């Protein structure tokens, strides 16, 4: 008896569970950890995952792909082009959204999106049961932040039909961040993150503040026209152009050739994420001509430049939506299969100051497998929920528990140099309690001034150092560099607290806000048995 976490994407899905030494992603019997979210029906047989995708070249109309976002959605809201290259999304006779599939001569099968979801989840469940050798008692499934109530309802219903009892649906960016920040208990550090998730058919981003281990989504953004399929299309065009030049034959004249181009593009892109060059090998691409070529990373990046250059703007848009500046972002967590692309990661890194950590595999080998983070987080949440009853979980999701107060400005104190020292960052939720120790002069009365922090952005222009060689001067393309910094200064004074007759090297100051919003400030010598000086501050 165990619980699992599932990420269910339009392109791939993953299953994870808590093993003895941490969260583990479960491979299906074919060894796939990112399992294509695809089913196909050919003659009497059903295929799932990569085996199903393999039929896209020969039997595209029998292959179901990109159906996750159609769950619980009204037909007019769907992007029908997502299934152009496979079984088309249509309205079935039952009125449901689904797929009409010709299984063998004259025989047709109607599969609703909900049925496809059930079958997909059943296949994932079987993979997990096979691997774990035990029954699954519950599942946490991650969903995008824009899923509607009806989409959630339909997904839960499908999951229960598949024999997977849903413990909780959690949002994809929070799942990914949970998995990422739970390593080394980074969740305990107050940081502001951007979680950017780049998939096969959509890009999603969220700004999430973590305060006292609590996550708050400050803004979200979605872009359905920025995705891996676009990169594949650009690369396919490049291959087709090369083919045409060599053989004067159009490699995009029929669906089968187009499917082969797509397959080869995906393979080449994935290879180029790891190594600097990839071979492209397509049998009978068009007119029975085989195509063999190679592409290096730079060529790929130039070919896909216009798509790759759009990712930073998308990430910047979510930061703006949260009313923040890139300087406010401590860390950018790149999620989703496409985040393996080195140029995509470096383009995003260029948007942020040096001090912002960019968690992406090409920039730091610690951050492996961005496509697995969501499932890992879901599995972690599932394991945490194991000790709670369904009733307790439901209670914890009530608005009265979820809608929590967040302070709107940083609160801290003023040190001997007149500088602002942050104790509680803005967006800190309460109840909260934070302590810090500060040096203090011995044998004196000490002043603790409690203030809100005000911030401004300081821009310093650094002129390039002139090159001594005067001949080159005229052509010098060195531009003055603008260094931007966020500066906090003491703002509105909230209170002053005296600590009398200090006899220690260090003073411990504690800020705590109770559930009613009363801020208590306490100061005491770091020495057992010393009296505490304290006072209370209300909020507006």
């Amino acid at each position: 008896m165990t619980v699992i976490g599932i990420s269910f994407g339009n392109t791939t899905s993953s299953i994870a569970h808590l093993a003895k030494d941490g969260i583990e992603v479960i491979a299906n019997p074919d060894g796939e950890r990112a399992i294509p979210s695809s089913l196909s029906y050919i003659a009497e047989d059903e295929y799932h995952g990569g085996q199903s995708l393999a039929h896209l070249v020969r039997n595209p109309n029998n292959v179901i792909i990109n159906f996750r976002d159609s769950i619980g959605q009204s037909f007019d809201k769907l992007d029908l082009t997502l299934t152009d290259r496979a079984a088309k999304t249509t309205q079935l006779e039952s009125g449901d959204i689904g797929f009409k599939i010709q299984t063998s001569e004259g025989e047709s099968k109607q599969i609703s999106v909900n049925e496809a979801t059930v079958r997909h989840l059943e296949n994932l469940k079987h993979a997990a049961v096979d691997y774990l050798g035990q029954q699954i008692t519950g599942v946490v499934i991650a969903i995008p932040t824009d899923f509607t109530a009806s989409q959630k309802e339909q997904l839960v219903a499908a999951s229960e039909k598949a024999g997977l009892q849903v413990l909780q649906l959690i949002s994809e960016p929070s799942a990914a961040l949970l998995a990422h920040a739970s390593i080394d208990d980074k969740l305990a550090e107050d940081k502001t993150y951007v979680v950017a998730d780049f998939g096969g058919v959509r890009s999603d981003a969220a700004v999430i503040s973590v305060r006292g281990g609590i996550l708050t989504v400050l803004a979200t953004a979605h872009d359905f026209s920025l995705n891996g399929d676009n990169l594949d299309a650009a690369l396919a065009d490049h291959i087709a152009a090369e083919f045409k030049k060599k053989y004067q034959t159009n490699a995009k004249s029929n669906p089968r050739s187009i499917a082969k181009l797509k397959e080869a593009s995906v393979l080449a892109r994935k290879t180029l994420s790891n190594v600097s060059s990839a071979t492209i090998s397509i049998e009978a691409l068009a007119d029975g001509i085989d195509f063999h070529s190679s592409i290096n990373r730079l060529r790929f990046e130039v070919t896909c430049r216009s798509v790759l250059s759009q990712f930073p703007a998308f990430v910047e848009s979510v930061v703006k939506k949260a009313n923040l500046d890139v300087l406010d972002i401590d860390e950018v967590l790149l999620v989703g299969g496409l985040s393996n692309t080195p140029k995509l990661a470096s383009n995003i890194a260029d948007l942020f100051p040096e001090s912002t950590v960019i968690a992406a595999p090409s920039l730091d080998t610690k951050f492996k497998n961005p496509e697995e983070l969501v499932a890992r987080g879901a599995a972690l949440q599932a394991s945490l929920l194991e000790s709670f009853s369904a009733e307790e979980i439901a209670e914890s999701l009530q608005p009265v528990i979820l809608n929590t107060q967040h302070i709107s400005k940083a609160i801290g104190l003023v040190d001997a140099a007149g500088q602002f020292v942050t104790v509680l960052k803005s967006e800190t939720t309460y109840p909260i309690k934070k302590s810090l120790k500060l040096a203090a002069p011995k044998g004196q009365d000490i002043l603790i001034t409690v203030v809100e922090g005000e911030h401004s952005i300081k821009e310093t222009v650094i002129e390039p150092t002139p090159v001594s060689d005067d001949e080159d001067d005229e052509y010098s393309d060195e531009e003055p560099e603008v260094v931007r910094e966020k500066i906090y200064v003491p703002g509105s004074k909230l209170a002053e607290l005296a600590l009398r007759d200090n006899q220690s090297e260090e003073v411990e100051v504690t800020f705590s806000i109770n559930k009613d919003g009363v801020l208590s400030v306490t100061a005491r010598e770091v020495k057992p048995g010393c009296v505490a000086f304290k006072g209370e501050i209300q909020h507006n």
Partner: protein
Amino acid sequence: MSLPVLPSNFGAENFKATAKFSAPVRRPIEPVGRYFLAHATRSLRGHTWSEYEK
């Protein structure tokens, strides 16, 4: 970072509140992670801080 000495004219009082802190914003938090579950449990069962401070 160190703390300053109390000015000599501070007076006998030990605490002077001068202003309220800015109005907080009510927002939903994400129901994930152990800190959230501790928060939810505390709120639902009315536990005090000290029980969770070990």
